[in-house]
């Protein structure tokens, strides 16, 4: 293992290098938490709880990663999630609609945002940040236009779906009353995992996926290499929009309510997760598996922070920002070091 490690390091691609860093960081952090904080981390359900709470974020981050791999960004995902939650909640609760249609609504809203933002970014060549900033404000504003008050959805079919649990065999534990409690995940986690696997395959084994990387690596070159750069960018934003739709519904399924303040800061968490997961802001480097672990790392660190007694609300925001800053620095340092090595 140690033999030829240096050369191995040199030959490993940027994407895989950053991915490795992320995974190592996550496992170190988690094991560290198990050893020193115990309690909450010592049962498998702890990990599943993290998954349950972050299924939506995983999906949103996947979309974000794809856009970031093409060199763009989309900060509207949080707003879109809130809008979807609110629309679905109003539809289910006040209009007494069916769950299937609400899924459709969620997807359509996501698709709509993806289409418009993708068009503006790819074909009108407007900065993605401005476009999605406007998208974010629009979505947040629309949410309060749809309904101003937060409320829980009482629709029975929906609540049943929300409370559906998928038992993970063999991972349960016995509580202090001596009862065996099954470990479980929510439906959203299954959706998130499927999406992670699907997108991993898309990015790895399809032309489209490779085009994302090419466009992000050097869009000028990509054009020269015969890739339709505009279309690729458009598809990336479209995918991100659709994933925001799916993620929005999964979020809604998890919280079971509509509120204008839902998913506040989700865009930041998604960006942070992607970056921690080894996606470069400059584009062309990133991995869905990394993003998945990015989300886990982020929420693990948040859990650690609160378990360690830093219980005040502000620590969450500061932790996320600090993690983001840290990983941005790590990225630039590692990349600079590699570049130096290569030039020599």
């Amino acid at each position: 293992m140690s033999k030829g490690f240096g050369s191995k390091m040199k030959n490993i691609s940027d994407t895989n290098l950053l991915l490795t860093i992320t995974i190592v960081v996550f496992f170190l952090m988690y094991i560290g938490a198990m050893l020193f904080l115990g309690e909450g981390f010592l049962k498998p359900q702890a990990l599943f709880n993290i998954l349950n709470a972050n299924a939506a974020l995983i999906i949103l981050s996947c979309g974000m990663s794809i856009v970031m791999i093409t060199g763009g960004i989309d900060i509207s995902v949080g707003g879109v999630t809130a809008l979807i939650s609110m629309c679905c909640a109003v539809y289910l609760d006040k209009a007494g609609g069916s769950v299937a249609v609400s899924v459709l609504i969620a997807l359509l809203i996501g698709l709509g945002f993806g289409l418009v933002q993708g068009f503006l970014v790819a074909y009108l060549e407007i900065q993605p940040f401005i476009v999605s900033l406007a998208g974010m404000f629009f979505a947040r504003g629309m949410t309060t236009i749809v309904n101003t008050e937060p409320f829980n959805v009482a629709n029975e079919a929906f609540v049943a779906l929300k409370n559906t649990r998928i038992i993970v065999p063999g991972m349960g534990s016995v509580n202090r009353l001596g009862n065996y409690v099954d470990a479980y995940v929510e439906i959203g986690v299954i959706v998130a995992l499927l999406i992670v696997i699907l997108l991993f395959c898309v990015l790895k084994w399809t032309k489209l996926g490779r085009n994302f990387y090419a466009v992000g690596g050097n869009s000028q070159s990509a054009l020269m290499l015969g890739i339709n750069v505009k279309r690729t960018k458009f598809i990336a934003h479209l995918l991100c929009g659709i994933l925001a739709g799916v993620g929005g519904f999964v979020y809604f399924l998890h919280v079971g309510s509509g509120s204008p303040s839902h998913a506040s800061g989700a865009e930041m968490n998604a960006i942070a997760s992607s970056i921690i997961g080894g996606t470069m802001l400059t584009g062309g480097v990133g991995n869905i598996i990394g993003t998945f672990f990015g989300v886990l790392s982020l929420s693990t660190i948040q859990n650690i922070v609160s378990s360690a007694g830093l219980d005040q609300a502000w620590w969450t925001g500061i932790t996320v920002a600090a993690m983001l800053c840290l990983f941005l620095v790590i990225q630039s340092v590692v990349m600079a070091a590699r570049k130096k090595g290569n030039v020599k």
Partner: protein
Amino acid sequence: MEDNAVLQMRNIHKSFPGVKALSGVDFTLRKGEIHALMGENGAGKSTLIKVLTGVYTKDEGHIYLDGHEKEVQIRSPQEAQKLGISPVYQEITLCPNLSVAENMYIGRTPGAMQNWRKMNKDADKLLKSLDIPAKATQQLSTCSLAVQQMIAIARAVDTDCKVLILDEPTSSLDEQEVEKLFKLMRDLRARGVGIIFVTHFLDQVYEVCDRITVMRDGCLVGEYEIKDLPRVQLVSKMLGKELDDLSDIHGEYKSYEKKEGELPVFEVEGLYSNAGIKPFDFHIDKGEVNGFTGLLGSGRSECVRAIFGADHVLGGKVKKNGKPVKISKPIDAMRQGIGYLPEDRKRDGIVGDLSVRDNIILAQQVLRGFLKPYSKAEADKIADEYIKLLNIKTASADTPIKSLSGGNQQKVILARWLLTHPEYLILDEPTRGIDVGTKVDIQKLVLKLASEGMSVTFISSEMDEMLRTCSRLIVMRDRKVVGELTGSDLNQTSIMSTIAGGDK
């Protein structure tokens, strides 16, 4: 015409608004030859290549492939590639974040799925057959620049190309890398590929090429077998012998009288920067006009940039009037009384959206400092003065500089530096891309300034200009100073032979 011609271009015309870029150029490429396309900047090489690769559409003329049976229309880069015309540019146009194999196959294989195994196998086979030292699975950015260049070539070759265009592929490679590249080129030649090789390095031309086509000012000078064209002749053909009304402007101005014991205004020892030049020594006296000469890419601009602190200086000493000074940033140089008119006017010179007035006062304003701006009236007065002095043709001082013609933009930049009253002015290609009248104005101005005691370094691709203005020439080749010419040595022949080096 020749039977074995893979490509013939006949009577190609192309003009841009106000400029005739190509007028009636012919070009023939034969099967299995490496054909150098030579000419100084603005000669029309790149325009010709862009016409050939479909980036520009020609105004007039015909292009034939495979003898002259088949006339083709090339409207886009994609069409050119389909016809088997593949360009490889100086800047690598590959994606550094992808693997070698991907870079070779992306965007040109059918199907929606990526078959890694097959692609890697194919890529390895191709790399091996071309003897390129890279693995298919390696990330491109981990390869050296030469290998990246070769991979671009491999990609081009694999598209069943008949015409391979290499546009300055060697400018960022070291000697060994160049050697590897040449080996690949020879291999390809043996396979019958026609290669167009654009370069500024004479040695390389003589090492690898079979034939040379020389262009100048958008016209064809001629096509020669390599053995029929000695270096000196090549250089003279490239540079041409333009005779115009400037034959003797030297006499109009008295040269500055050097006083006894006067130290050089600036003196440089062993200076080198991160731009890849070898350490060099240099000095300039008060009232002297000297120049760096050499072909493009020989390092002449990099030398003056190092003096001005524009590149990151890695080592060497600078002395002003015998006293050492530290110059690490342009502002240091400016404080020492150096002015620098950069080579790339558009990129480094003008501040496009700003008015002519602001562009004129910019450098002086920086020197005066943050808290001492010119009042509106002062700025207007200065601007008007210099507009008149240099005869700048502009609607008003308020006009954005980007809407001026190239020559007038250059005069504005010149005015900017004259305003700072430098002791030493560096002019890097001040006459490039501007009309003859302005050229003469600028040359006269240089001599006038020198007669008033200013030291000037003048760099130009045009030999005549240099000879007319400079009293001493520093000759560069391959990023090294290779000679210094003064007095009676200052003539075309000696300059060319020094530039050419090697066989005389």
